[in-house]
């Protein structure tokens, strides 16, 4: 019995080892059922308890929002020290997560039972038992630990910050949900983000199981990679939807504020991305094991860190709330996770040491290593910036703020480097790239992107950073185009396929590669949108009398009057602005200020007009109360911004191509 088994024993693994594999499997099953039952139970409980109040609110907001409303009522009634005007509350998240956890659990039970079936089917073939047992113990360890994590969250849900306590006193004068959360996006965005967040516990559980059991072969990579793609994808889409929500609902014309909690959502995405790249090196060369395990642990710890930030309120953020004992519990959990997992990693490091060898410094392996360095540096930067106010106050006693200007200036070079590597990495040869290989693969893309750069320089872009950015982005696109063209031509030569069928064959033969390339294109589009909207935004804030107008970019905006109206839920002041694009009228846009009876300050409803070239975004920021003939408005023109959302969609497509089953059928 190795050290791993001993550790497993000490962790309550006695049953697994002492009673044999079957019993162990049953235990794992019970753990999962227990977790699932708790979750389902919470859900039923909500449905059961909520009946008194929900109907009243359902009329008001529609059934979809009821859940969120309940959270809010509870918050209102408890009246935490900071009040209850929070944006998406963690309570909302916890609720959606518990639903998702239920789905997860159901899924797990399904897979588990199916696996049981598979193994039962094989059990009478006695000679296979030994091999399977090792596999099963690994699975069980994974499930076991995953179950524990789930239970931890459930315990928090139950005892500390229970979102379901509302019925202790019905909301005689509840405030209703924050109006800005009353959008369908808010029903999708937090759950997606939370699938991402919770999802990272699965790769983590597999990693820890592998470390504990000492079975450090390829099995865990395979599983972990799949689950990481899953969580990575949902986290990424969740973040994008959050940005989209901020853009269309919050009415400040931006989509990303580098707020601590936004950073916390983004941070796990970076090591996950790094892992998805470096795991390919491990698959091919059996090296970087410690590194990959570290990335998984870091990604998971960051999800805990993010929850901790939101719950503890130690940093000022629009998403954070007042502190409570939950913060301390999360910190303790974070410390525990970090210490045990990295401790385990250090302890197992001898077994993990491979025989790393490289053929050449100029190879895809090195490109991936560099990609990892850049991604982790970006992670480090964002992390440092996020907690630097704390460090500074603790060490130097100086209160400082680290906000958007800092993050923008520091991360831009890192991301530009990343874009460059994105162009180089997928095309450079594995093992060893000769000069000839480099010339063949990169000559034409480089030339083409230089042409683009020249073109941009002459016609449009004179500033260095945007020019560099656009050039690098075009470089990535050209490498992908060039590479695909070569491959299609080869298919044509080999099998005589046409362009389309060649593309299909290529994608099916190597789903991960081509799915990955599509994801890269999506990322390029997102970067394009960010670069355009960051570098060349125009913004004006002007007070206009009726009949006056203002010019911004190619647009001219004419103020035509204010209209006050009473809506079922609120009263609203709308401004009518006739918008002209280079003299052509494109219509009347009417941004509004909504006055909700329960809210002190009005909520703005910005309007925007989106095109592939640029977005026009109008915010009504004030009006003259008395005569209503004067309005203050803020107008932004943000070039290329729509490409961010298109990019998100492309990433979605790419991920689907990468994970769709189908390759096996070809064989």
């Amino acid at each position, binding site marked *: 019995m190795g050290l791993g088994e001993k550790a497993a024993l000490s962790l309550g693994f006695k049953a697994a080892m002492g009673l044999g594999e079957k019993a162990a499997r049953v235990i794992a099953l019970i753990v999962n059922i227990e977790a699932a039952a708790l979750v389902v139970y919470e859900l039923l409980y909500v449905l059961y308890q909520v009946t008194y109040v929900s109907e009243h609110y359902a009329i008001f907001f529609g059934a979809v929002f009821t859940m969120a409303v309940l959270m809010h009522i509870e918050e209102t009634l408890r009246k935490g020290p900071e009040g209850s005007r929070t944006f998406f509350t963690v309570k909302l998240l916890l609720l959606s997560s518990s639903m998702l956890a239920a789905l997860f659990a159901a899924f797990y039970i399904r897979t588990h039972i199916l696996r049981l079936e598979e193994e039962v089917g094989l059990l009478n073939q006695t000679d296979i038992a030994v091999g399977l047992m090792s596999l099963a113990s690994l699975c069980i360890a994974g499930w076991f630990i995953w179950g524990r994590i789930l239970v931890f969250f459930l315990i928090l849900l139950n005892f500390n910050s229970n979102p379901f306590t509302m019925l202790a006193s019905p909301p005689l004068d509840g405030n209703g949900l924050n109006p800005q959360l009353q959008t369908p996006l808010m029903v999708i965005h937090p759950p997606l983000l939370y699938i991402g967040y919770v999802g990272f516990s699965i790769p983590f559980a597999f990693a820890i199981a592998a470390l504990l059991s000492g079975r450090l072969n390829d099995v865990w990579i395979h599983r972990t990679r799949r689950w990481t793609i899953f969580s990575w994808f949902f986290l990424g889409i969740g973040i994008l939807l959050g940005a989209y929500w901020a853009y269309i609902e919050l009415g400040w014309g931006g989509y990303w504020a580098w707020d601590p909690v936004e950073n916390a959502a983004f941070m796990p995405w970076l090591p996950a991305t790094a892992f998805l790249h470096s795991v390919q090196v491990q698959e091919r060369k059996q090296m970087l094991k410690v590194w990959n395990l570290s990335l998984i642990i870091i990604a998971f710890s960051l999800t805990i860190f993010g929850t*901790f930030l939101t719950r*503890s*309120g*130690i*940093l*000022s953020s629009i998403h*954070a709330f007042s*502190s409570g004992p939950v*913060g*301390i519990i999360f*910190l303790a959990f*974070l*410390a525990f996770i*970090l*210490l045990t997992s*990295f*401790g385990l*990693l*250090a*302890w197992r*490091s*001898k077994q993990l040491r491979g025989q790393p060898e490289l053929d050449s410094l100029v190879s895809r392996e090195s490109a991936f290593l560099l990609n990892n360095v850049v991604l982790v540096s970006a992670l480090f930067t964002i992390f440092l910036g996020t*907690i630097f*106010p*704390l*460090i500074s*106050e*603790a060490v130097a006693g100086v*209160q400082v703020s680290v906000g958007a200007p800092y993050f923008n200036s520091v991360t831009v070079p890192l991301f530009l480097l990343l874009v460059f590597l994105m162009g180089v990495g997928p095309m450079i040869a594995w093992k060893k790239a000769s000069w000839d290989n480099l010339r063949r693969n990169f000559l034409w893309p480089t030339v083409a992107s230089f042409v683009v750069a020249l073109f941009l320089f002459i016609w449009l872009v004179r500033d260095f950073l945007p020019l560099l950015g656009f050039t690098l982005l075009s470089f990535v696109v050209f490498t992908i185009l060039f590479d695909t063209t070569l491959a299609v031509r080869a298919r044509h030569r080999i099998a005589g396929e046409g362009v389309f069928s060649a593309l299909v064959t290529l994608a099916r033969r190597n789903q991960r590669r081509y799915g990955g390339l599509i994801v890269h294109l999506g990322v390029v589009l997102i970067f394009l949108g960010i670069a355009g909207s960051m570098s060349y935004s125009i913004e004006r804030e002007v007070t206009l009398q009726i009949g006056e107008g203002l010019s911004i970019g190619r647009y001219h905006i004419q103020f035509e009057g204010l209209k006050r109206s009473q809506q079922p839920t609120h009263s609203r002041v709308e401004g009518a602005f006739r918008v002209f694009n280079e003299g052509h009228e494109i219509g009347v846009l009417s941004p509004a200020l909504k006055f909700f009876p329960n809210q002190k*300050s009005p909520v703005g409803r910005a309007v925007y007009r989106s095109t592939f070239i640029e977005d026009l975004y109008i915010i009504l920021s004030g009006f003259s109360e008395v005569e209503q003939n004067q309005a203050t408005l803020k107008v932004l023109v943000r070039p290329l911004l729509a490409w961010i959302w298109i990019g998100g969609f492309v990433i979605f497509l790419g991920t689907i191509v990468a994970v769709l089953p189908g390759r096996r059928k070809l064989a």
Partner: protein
Amino acid sequence: MPWRRILLTLAVILPLVGVLAFGFSRDPRYIASPLIGRPAPPFTVTLFDGKKLSLADLRGKVVFLNFWASWCPPCRAEARDLEAVWQRYRDKNIVFLGIDIQDTEKEAFAFLKEFQITYPNGRDASGKISIDYGVWGIPETFFIDPEGRITYKHVGGLEYPIIVAKLDEARRGLISAKEGKGAYQSIR
């Protein structure tokens, strides 16, 4: 046992957890003022009775400078105590001065009337004075000594004994090391 690696792990993780734990000891919204011990920024304010008052004219007196608004509950809570101290110490070379911020004149009047406040009060319509004093949460009170230096700053509601004690310190020119803190209302 790879002790070196384990120690390295600890060396990274423990300070990190420490820094995060430190976060619990502070209020993230609190902004420490760099003004304590510095000369009070000069200003001239139009009082509600129409007269103008300059801080410079008050040199040689202890000045109790209070920022408030009628919509702020902690301001209401402390108003009676402020007036009581003023009634008791008004002849002892001490000046109370209230600056009303982010308020309408009508509501401010109602506030003054409700609490029967008799010390001079003025309105800072443009916000210039409050920005000059780095105000962020009200009530915010500055104690200024006869030399014109800020000796103490208190964010949040004040009570009779503290006011008296800090007025005395200001009279003697004693500069407090720390800001005071009570229940405050973030301004808008």
